[in-house]
């Protein structure tokens, strides 16, 4: 029997359609891995092709190597054709029912490693830690510019997830406003704090640890759960055990534990479903240098986390029309498969 489930934080309802339940093999992509070489074998992100990207804004590279030359480990470049351009945010126009503002912002690409064929989960743990360290450094640097209320980190892996190039990369987009989805999460977190008299995410983590049926992975600093009201098959959320709204607060020890966590869960996803396309998004508090006035209780109420959505089903008319998601794999079933080492 199907079940309606409400996500505590967003208030969104999800249909867990157990009668449509499928096994992991049902989702295996037909053509094997999604990591085909680019046609012709050329890739602008590969080592040696640095002149094909805009000049790097940051790189972890071997001592003595010059910017925009080979010898890098993680490289960050501005998007050549950015969705938003850097600039000073103009004041918000007043009056009228239709509001608009200039599309200023930052759009950067983080090339996670020089090797086209090595996906994030294939990298050694210290390299994954370095990738996440670069995410932190770039978010910190962009927030210092004081123009951008929110910095969104995301990764599209595979064509179906929106990636146009298979060379492993992530993207960072900073916006002058806090996006609606983040606001909804903050309001949800505020509501949960009022209800529980503690951070709602910390409470969820405690409940999930006690229930034990949706906890995919746990180490000394992180817990990975298949959310109770998962919208998508094999959806996962990665939470730090230490309460903090800011991803940039993660310390060295936690960064290494995060890398170990990501290695584990992405490898399990790959082995369980067969290297599916996925999206990964970071949800964190808005720029703390700007947001404390607007969100005075953010430090107490919000808890940063990563969400991973394998792209195994299509969001179609019913989902778009109603906001309901139909998930054919209960998170408890997904957890059983994902737990297997």
């Amino acid at each position: 029997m199907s079940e309606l489930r409400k996500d505590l934080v967003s208030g969104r309802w999800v249909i867990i359609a157990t009668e449509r339940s499928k096994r992991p093999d049902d989702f295996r992509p037909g053509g094997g891995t999604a990591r085909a070489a680019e046609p012709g074998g050329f890739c602008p992100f590969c080592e040696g092709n640095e002149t094909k990207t805009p000049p790097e804004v940051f790189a972890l590279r071997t001592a003595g190597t010059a910017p925009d030359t080979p010898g890098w480990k993680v490289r960050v470049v501005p998007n050549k054709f950015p969705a938003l351009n850097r600039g000073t945010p103009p004041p918000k126009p007043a009056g009228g029912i239709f509001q608009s503002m200039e599309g200023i912002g930052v759009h950067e690409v983080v090339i996670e490693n020089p090797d086209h064929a090595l996906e994030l989960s294939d990298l050694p743990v210290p390299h994954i830690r370095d990738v996440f360290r670069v995410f932190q450094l770039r978010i910190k640097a962009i927030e210092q510019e004081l123009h951008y209320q929110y910095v969104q980190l995301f990764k599209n892996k595979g064509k179906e997830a929106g990636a146009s190039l298979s060379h492993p990369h992530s993207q960072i987009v900073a916006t002058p406003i806090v996006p609606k989805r983040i606001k909804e999460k903050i309001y949800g977190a505020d509501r949960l704090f009022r209800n529980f008299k503690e951070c709602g995410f910390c409470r969820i983590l405690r409940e999930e640890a006690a229930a034990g049926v949706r906890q995919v992975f746990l180490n000394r600093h992180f817990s990975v759960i298949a959310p109770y009201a998962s919208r998508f098959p094999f959806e996962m959320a990665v939470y730090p055990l230490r309460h903090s709204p800011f991803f940039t607060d993660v310390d060295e020890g936690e960064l290494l534990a995060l890398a170990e966590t990501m290695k584990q869960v992405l490898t399990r996803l790959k082995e369980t479903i067969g290297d599916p396309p996925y999206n990964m998004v970071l949800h964190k508090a808005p720029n703390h240098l700007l947001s404390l006035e607007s969100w005075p209780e953010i430090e107490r109420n919000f808890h940063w986390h990563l969400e991973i959505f394998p792209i195994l089903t299509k969001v179609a008319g019913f989902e778009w029309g109603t906001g309901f998601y139909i998930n054919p794999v209960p998170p408890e079933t997904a957890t059983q498969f994902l737990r297997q080492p």
Partner: protein
Amino acid sequence: MKKNILLVEDEKALCLLYEEELSQEGYAVTAVTDAEAALAELGKTTFDLIITDIRMPGMDGIELITQIMGLRKDIPIIINSAYQSYKEDFMTWAADAYVVKSASLDELKSKVKHLLGD
């Protein structure tokens, strides 16, 4: 000596227009209407610059660029497309310029001159 431009454009009328306009600017233009013919020309002649459309029957312009980059990385390439949307495809970064087609050829000519150092 005239600089050689390889022009890849599947719409014959546009192909003629670009060929004539660029010839008037003093360039030697070899015009072809599909990617396969472009690759064949590249095997025969040394070009200083390539201008290619994206949406073409058969091999598209992005695949053509990757094929060219596999052969030679030193020839500047201009994407000349009616569509902005291909800018979202990171493979277009392999080109040195991206021009969105318009009634005026000023931007295209300006990019050609810039990339050829004229």
